């Protein structure tokens, strides 16, 4: 994977902004992301392209805010699938997203 898992400059500016609340931000992001992955899974299972697009778009935005660049990149690919209504690669992309999210969660958990 060419993009770094977490952009350290984004993380440091987030820490600066959030101060003591940074762990809260991480916790919010992680629990919110689980909801989004669930939504993505449902949308792909029911083959609702617009829902795939919206959920991926939204997830992409919060990933980029948290500096999770690789995850944001995968979301972007999935959003494109939804936009063009070509859902064939979607299950594989979702799998990649789930793996990458697990890895990101791991990194955040290590502090």
């Amino acid at each position, binding site marked *: 994977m060419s993009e770094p898992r977490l952009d350290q400059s*984004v993380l440091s500016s987030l820490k600066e902004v*959030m101060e003591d609340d940074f762990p809260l931000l991480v916790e*919010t992001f992680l*629990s919110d*992301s689980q909801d989004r992955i669930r939504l993505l899974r449902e949308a792909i299972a029911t083959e609702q392209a617009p829902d795939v697009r919206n959920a991926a778009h*939204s997830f992409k935005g919060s990933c980029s*805010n*948290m500096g999770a660049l690789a995850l944001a990149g995968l979301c972007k690919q999935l959003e494109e699938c939804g936009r063009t209504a070509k859902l064939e690669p979607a299950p594989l992309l979702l799998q990649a997203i789930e793996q990458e999210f697990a890895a990101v969660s791991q990194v955040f958990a290590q502090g």
Partner: protein
Amino acid sequence: MSEPCTVLIAEDNAADRLLLSTIVSKQGHRAIVAANGAEAVELFAQERPQLVLMDALMPVMDGFDATRQIKALAGDELVPVIFLTSLTETEALVRALDAGGDDFLSKPYNKVILQAKLGAMLRMRSLHSTVLEQRNLIAKHNEHLLSEQRVAKAVFDRIAHAGCLSAANIRYLQSPFALFNGDLLLAAFTPSGGMNILLGDFTGHGLPAAVGAMPLSEVFYGMTAKGFSIADVLREMNQKLKRILPVGVFCCATLIHLNLHQRVLEVWNGGLPAGVLCRKDGSQQPLLSRNLPLGILEPESFNDHCEVFDIAEGDRILLWSDGVPESGNAAGEMFGEERLLNVLKNAPHEHLFDQLRAALSNFTGEQQDDLSLVEVAVVPEESLPWQSLPASASTRQSPLDWSAGFDFRASTLQAFNPLPFLMQWLLEVQELRPLAGTLYTMLTEVYSNALEHGVLGLDSALKADANGFAAYYRERMERLEALEQGWVRLHFDHRMEAEGGCLTIQVSDSGGGLPAAAMAVANAGTPFAGRGLRLLNELADECWRDEADGSLFLRVRWQR
């Protein structure tokens, strides 16, 4: 650092909400959050935040609809909406702008950029609210001004409508609020059944232009009703305006006196465009400005000299303010004097006013606000209502049994018109008030006969044609100026009778009074020169000449 304010954050993503509200709070603002568009609209209505950060794609209601609703709720107030979106999608940007979005913020959020955008938007907002406040203030002032003008106009109308602008021989065009452009149009019957008309144009606009109208109208109506000559009225108006108006404010005016009985038009024009006397035969006489406007000269320098023209039934006098030639059209051209005079030259005599009005509205294409136009027709004296004075409110007993005599000698005859004062005294007899018009006409007639023929020795045969007419009035003025000797005597005697009362007026002069022949001519009904005497015969209950000294007696009776 901008003033602290409330910022609404509408974002369905919990982490982004938290991040944004933290950034906003750290900048000293209060953050309120909504997870979708519908919540955002509801929260906006409750809290009226000053600024909104709006995600585009949200469940329930998206950011575009929410923005439209928030903008509608905000009304006049500027509530900046910053869309939270990545700048990559052109279509979404266009939709955001269409919905009323003011700016964009792309992800990932950057604290410094968000801070700068918040600051800029809040400055724009405060500028807008200043403009709005000023606009409202101006609107309020304007409303206030208009209501003041309405009050002033109502008061003024009550004074102006004391006059006879509605008389059958007057037509005029004037916008309802012309008063506040400084324009003034007044008309009143004189006690002798003639008519005075004043068209005035004060310098300036608005209330300053309107204030002078009150004193001017009061002088005009008060003195016209009492029978003062227009020269007297002019002198009084000039000195009053000179006294009360600041330097630099004055009134361009034309004052005319229409003497329907003697068929004489007197004109004084100070500073207004030349009006026109349009004779029935098609010839036209300009009524030129020969004087400075009213309110400029000191009383001793003021020239009250009026031009005198003979007039005939059917002649029309047209006067206008400079708003008429200066009326503009859409192309910025002015109507102009030439076009105006052309209309007057070519229109059928009886349609002068209508055609001028039509030409004006064709030219300008709309209602003009700043012009006054008036036409006065010369009509038979009898066709106008005879003015009778209302009984005075005083319950005082009338003087019923008295006699009084007056001698007016050369220097007084030159400079003073005694008739208004004599009338005022006579009308102390309440019972004579209904006869005021008759009395005034009789007095005017006998006094000018005594002065012009008896004292000045003028021959009324001169007045037989239009040229002689002008010569007659020139001669009258010259002889009066040169007068060193001579007198006019008026004697009044009022007595009670069984059924009412009886006023006897005796007139004599230094020229030997009325020639015996004049009375005979009058009785025989010779048309021109004898007109005055015939009229006296008709108006008085009795009219006779004293053979011994040539004095004329007139007797008027009233009944209870």
